[in-house]
Structure formats: C-alpha cells, structure tokens
C-alpha cells in the first residue's frame, strides 16, 4: 500500500525576467511518498492545467541526477534537505504529512529568472568557454598508456569532474559566488598532464569571466560543499587559489 501525504506549497511565480514575482500557495493532496519532488510538481501542474491555470515552470532533463538541469531552493536549501542529492532524486518520503514547503528559484544576480523556477544558467557556460581548449597531439594514435597518471590523481580529477554545473553552489553561497563550480572545472583539467600546458591562462581567464558576470566573492563559508549534489570539496577552491597565485606571479600570462 502506497503511503500518501498532503502538503501546502509556497511556490515562487514570476511571469518573466523583468516582472515582479511573488510566493503563491498551492495545496498538493494525496502525494505518494514514492514520488520524486519533480513528479510531485508534475501532479500539481496537471491539476493547474485542468483548472485552466498557468502551470508552474521548472527546469529538468534527465531526472536521474546526472544532467544538472533541475534545481530549486526547497525550504531554504538548494536541491532540498538531503545531502548529495539533486532535486529530481529527492523523494517525497523525506517530507511529512501536513508540511509546508517553500520552493524558490536559485537566486543570484548572475542567474536571471526566465520564468517561475526556471533560471538562465548560461553564465556558467560562459565561464567554461573562457577556459578555452587543451592542447592535443594530432597524427597517429599514441599508445593508451603513454602518459602515466597515478590512480590517486585520476580519482581527484574525477571527483572534480563530477560537477554537473547545476549552480547549487552559487545558490547556496551567502555571497552568490561561483568559486566551487569554477574550481571544479579548473581542478579537473589542471590535475591531469593534458591540462597542464594551458593551466595558467585557463585559471586567469575563467576567474576574470566569473568576476565580470557579477558572481560574488568567496568568503569560505563552506555552504557550497555542504549543498553540492556531487559533494565536491572546497579543497578544489584551495587548488584553484594556488593555481591563480602561480599564474599571477610566476607565469607570463597577463
């Protein structure tokens, strides 16, 4: 027998980027605890559509926790109360009957609200673009094991590469800084030999772009690593700081 719960939802509604938004109240009754948070919103939207009302716009894609497209702030926490979980993988069994749930979009000056809970994450793409390329040899294929990478290094690079670019770090940061995101992208390339040749230029360009896009400054509050659905550590931020210092004072990169 499936357990069901009744909820009161306070959801941010905003018709467009420039318009004024507000929290609106919705009742969601007989929600199965086996549903994901997004499926619960689907149920609410079905009812709104039947009632002839505008459904709530929210972002999603894979619903498997790997694409980085979904994400809202649920009761003050990006991707909800569970650690290491994206919103699509958050299940309603973590809520109780009669709960009131506040759902807000990820808020930052750099993330414009497109509609309701949908935000424009393209500033994160711009930071990645600023990172540029890695040098790769052309010509015949070299032996797969020609470049040796210790297992431990490969693991660290992979931990950083686990970043799905969802923007929860920005949403969680009291300063709306994107340092965890940028440091994950910098780290996953800089740890590997293939990422070393352009390391100095990459870190300087990515940070410059982050600053230009009006993200805040890191003050080591550690909210980002606490909320990251991929549990990326702030040790990456320290690594990026090191790379930035090296690039700034010891390389010829301007």
């Amino acid at each position: 027998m499936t357990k069901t719960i009744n909820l009161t939802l306070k959801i941010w509604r905003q018709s467009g980027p420039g318009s004024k938004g507000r929290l609106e109240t919705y009742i969601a009754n007989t929600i199965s605890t086996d549903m994901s948070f997004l499926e619960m919103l689907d149920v609410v939207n079905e009812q709104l559509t039947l009632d002839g009302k505008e459904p709530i716009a929210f972002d999603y894609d894979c619903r498997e926790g790997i694409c980085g497209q979904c994400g809202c702030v649920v009761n003050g926490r990006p991707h909800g109360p569970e650690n290491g979980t994206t919103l699509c993988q958050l299940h309603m069994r973590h809520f109780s009957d009669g709960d009131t749930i506040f759902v807000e979009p990820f808020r930052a000056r750099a993330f414009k609200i497109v509609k309701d809970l949908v935000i424009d994450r393209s500033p994160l793409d711009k930071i990645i673009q600023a990172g540029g390329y890695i040098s790769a040899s052309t010509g015949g294929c070299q032996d797969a094991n020609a470049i040796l990478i210790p297992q431990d290094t490969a693991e660290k690079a992979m931990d950083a590469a686990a970043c799905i670019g969802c923007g929860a770090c920005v949403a969680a940061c009291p300063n709306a800084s994107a340092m965890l995101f940028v440091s994950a992208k910098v780290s996953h390339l800089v740890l590997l030999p293939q990422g070393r040749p352009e390391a100095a230029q990459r870190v300087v360009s990515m940070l410059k772009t982050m600053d230009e896009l009006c993200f805040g400054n890191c003050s080591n509050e550690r909210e980002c690593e606490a909320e990251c659905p991929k549990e990326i550590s702030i040790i990456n931020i320290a690594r990026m700081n090191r790379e930035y210092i090296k690039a700034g004072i010891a390389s010829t990169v301007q």
Partner: protein
Amino acid sequence: MQWIFDFFGSSVGKKLMMALTGLCFIGFLTGHLIGNLTLYGGRDAFNAYAEHLHALGPVITLVEWGLLTLAAIHVFTGMLLFLQNLKARPVRYAINKSGGGRTISSALMPYTGFAILLFLIYHLLQFHFVDKTFTTIYDIVSLAFANVLNISFYIIAMVVVALHIRHGFWSLFQTLGANHPKYMPMVMGGSLVFSLIFGIGFGFLPVYISFSG
C-alpha cells in the same frame, strides 16, 4: 605593471589581500599579547616593557605606519568585498537555511570586522593618543580598568576578536591555497586554539588588573 592591479583586483586577489594582511595581524596580536603579559609582573615590569618598546624609536614609528597601511588595506578591501557580495544577490531568499557549512563566526565576519575597527579607534584613543607626561602607561591602564563598564566593554570586544579569528585563521590558509588533507585538521584546530588564546589572553587582563589594582 598593470598585471599587479589585475592580479590583486580579481575576486581571489582581493581575498589574498585579506589573507595576507590578516596573517600580519595575527603576528602583531601575538607580539602584543606576549608584551602585555608583563602586566602580570606588576607596575614596574609593564612600565619597563613600554619604555624598552619606545626606546626603539624610529623602528616603532615604522611598524606603526606599517600596521596602519595593513589596516587600511584590510578594512577597505573587506568593505569592498562586503558590498560586492551584497550586490551579487539582489533578491534574497524567503527562507534561509544553512546546509551545515556556515558557523556563527563565518556568518558574522564583516560585522565583527567592523566592530573591531570601532574598538580599535577607542582603544588607541584610550591608551595610545594620550598625554603620558605626568603619568605612566601602567597608571592609565589600571585607572581605565577600575571602571566596570570599561572592563565589560573590553571583554565583549575580545569575544568579538576571538570570533573574527575563529574563521579568519583557517580561512586565510584556504585562501592562500594551503588546504592539504594532512595539515588541514591542524589548521582548523589552530584556528580554535588561536581564537581562544587571544580571547582569553587579552580578555582576562582587565579582570586581573581591576582585582590587583
């Protein structure tokens, strides 16, 4: 030369300035506390310490101007970071909840910093920019700490300083890129130890003086 401004003008560069100046202040506080411990030696020991210090003449003046410059950088950069960070999220959340990263000390950093600035001005006016022709520094100190209000004010100020160091100390290592699985637990421990040493070390002095005075 432009690269220097670009380097320190970026978000990480500004944090580096905060970290480096902060590290200097930890060094200064260590010296200040060791010197102040002569208060436990009584009137002559403390006055002798002050005399020896002032006998250094131009060295002291140089250090004073140096500290003033560092303070100017720390305060100005801190304010800039605070304002930029406020602007980075123009619409606030209706519900704010910590995921467990934030501490009281980290959340209050800009406010404890500003409070310390105000305290510093008061502290300098009370003990530094004061006519010492017909009196000694020990008499000024013991007279000041005969007042219960003044003692309480200093103790509260030292709690604020301890809170600021609690986050500032480990944070400066992180900003300088010194985060290593082997050493970070020690840095974190050091953060607590330093904040307690400065908080209790300075905070207990007014109490001691008022009872011994």
